[in-house]
């Protein structure tokens, strides 16, 4: 069962990476003559995408990578203590590992204000890991605001799945 879960989470990470690699589709204005700026952007993105691909084996095995938040809440619930402990142990054990903590909100309200609210969630997870002894140099907390919902729909069931922070290893 645990192996199955692991496979599922690896598949999720791979699909996440695939969307990153596809960034050669980033293209610039039709009316432009040159696209040198665009090409350099694509290259750096590709290498970043590949780096993330190599990272799919990383992260504590069999441990949740997503932390859900209550409505209008930006603090990590006590029930996630064991999850965070496992991530902290993993990061302390290998100082070369880095984790990206991505905060998300539900769809209600403005893009930029939600970006700031998602940041509060990822910062809360980062602080929790810091308290557990993970050096700041191994963590980065960022936000996607409301831009990347995992559940579609405009009801509490969708909202509750979208209020989250995800730990992504590189």
């Amino acid at each position, binding site marked *: 069962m645990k192996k199955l879960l692991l496979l599922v989470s690896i598949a999720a990470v791979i699909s996440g990476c695939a*969307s*990153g690699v*596809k*960034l050669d*589709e*980033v*293209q*610039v*204005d*039709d*009316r*432009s*003559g*040159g*696209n*040198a*700026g*665009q090409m350099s*952007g694509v290259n*750096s*993105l590709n290498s*970043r995408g590949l780096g*993330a691909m190599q990272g799919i084996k990383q992260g504590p095995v069999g441990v949740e990578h997503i932390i859900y938040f209550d409505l209008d809440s930006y603090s990590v619930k006590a029930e996630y203590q064991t999850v965070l402990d496992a991530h902290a142990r993993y990061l302390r054990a290998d100082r070369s590992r880095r984790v*990206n903590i*991505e905060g998300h909100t539900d769809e*209600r*309200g*403005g*893009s*930029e*204000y939600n*970006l*700031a*609210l998602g*940041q*509060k969630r990822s*910062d809360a997870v980062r602080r929790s890991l810091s308290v557990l002894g993970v050096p700041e140099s191994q963590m*980065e*907390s*960022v*936000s*996607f*605001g409301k*831009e*990347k919902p995992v559940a579609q729909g405009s009801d509490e069931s969708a909202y509750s799945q979208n209020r989250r922070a995800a730990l*992504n290893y590189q």
Partner: protein
Amino acid sequence: MTRPFFRFALGLLTASLLALPTWAQFRVEVSGVGLTQVPIAFAPLRGEETSPQKISAIVQADLERSGQFRGVTAGVVTDETQRPDVSAMRQKGADALLTGSISRMNDGRYDVRVRLWDVVRGQDLGAMSYTVVTGDLRLASHRIADFVYEKLTGDKGVFSTRIAYVTKAGSRFNLWVADSDGENAQSALASPEPIISPSWSPSGGQLAYVSFESRKPVVYVHDVSTGKRRVVANFRGSNSAPSWSPDGRSLAVTLSRDGGSQLFVIDAQGGEPRRLTQSAGIDTEPVFSPDGTAIYFVSDRGGAPQIYRMPASGGPANRVTFNGTYNISPAISPDGRWLTYISRIGGAFKLHVMDIASGNVAAITDTHRDERPSFAPNSRLIVYATQQDGREALMTTTLDGRIKARLSGQGGDLREPNWGPFSKVLP
């Protein structure tokens, strides 16, 4: 020059308000009566039936969207060289008449000519002509609408300006630069990751925006004519909410690099940012006042998001919004008189306009998911995002909310609009 039109408009208005022509390409919604609208007749341009663009229809749609004009069918065939039968036009209820012609030249370009008439006084108000390639016929039409608008209202028209917006279609995101009617959109960026917060530079040559293509929010500045772009803010954490200073030299941004979301100012070329706010909570969505001396922004320092104002170099902030517990996304009109923003009222997110001098506020929409308003460069219209029929759509509205139009555009959900400055020159 402008007064007779308004005087004559009043008497004719009530009877014919429901007779708005429907052949314009926009559904223009008119709510409320007693508006002062100039009734203007449009004679189809001679040669228009075989031209790739229906110039007179584009001009009419532009002028009606402004809320200050009402189209009247001329029902005559004439052109800019003929003196029109002004008494016939008056009988149709028109105060003004636009006539013209379009002809294809040997090199394939089009020669477009128009003349504007004051039919009340029987006076020729001037002519314009453009020689353009097919792809610029819409732009020439918007220029003609600007000409008519300025002649009859005394204000500059905004029809030849541009609007940037983002579409989401499936999992694809596109940043578009379009004409002010949403048409003629050109893709500036296509990405599988979200793009938000496009913001025009004061010169209209560049767009700042936030792209998530590297799995985090990073601020870019994109040269619209060359398509080249550069990273302006990619610091540890999130980088977002770019807003240009009026001189175009720097950007106010929201960075989380020091913990929390705080305001910084950074050179438009990049470099080391200077911190503007020091609060324990969220500070975001900065916008400069048109004179560059102040920054309006959103902060939850009082417990809920409200709009504040502070000196552009930082310092003490004064609260600007007092109603409700969720006021975000401020924009200031270029003339400095108006603040527009989104306020949550009973779970609905609604566009509001505040008269800054008096502090009077009005909600001007009946939709529930309004977002990200910005002003047209003449301060007379606002573009904003909302939801209509389950899709994300862009709307323009007059400041009193009486005239609204849904912008046409690409397929998918349309969002994150930003109205550009006066700038585009006809090639």
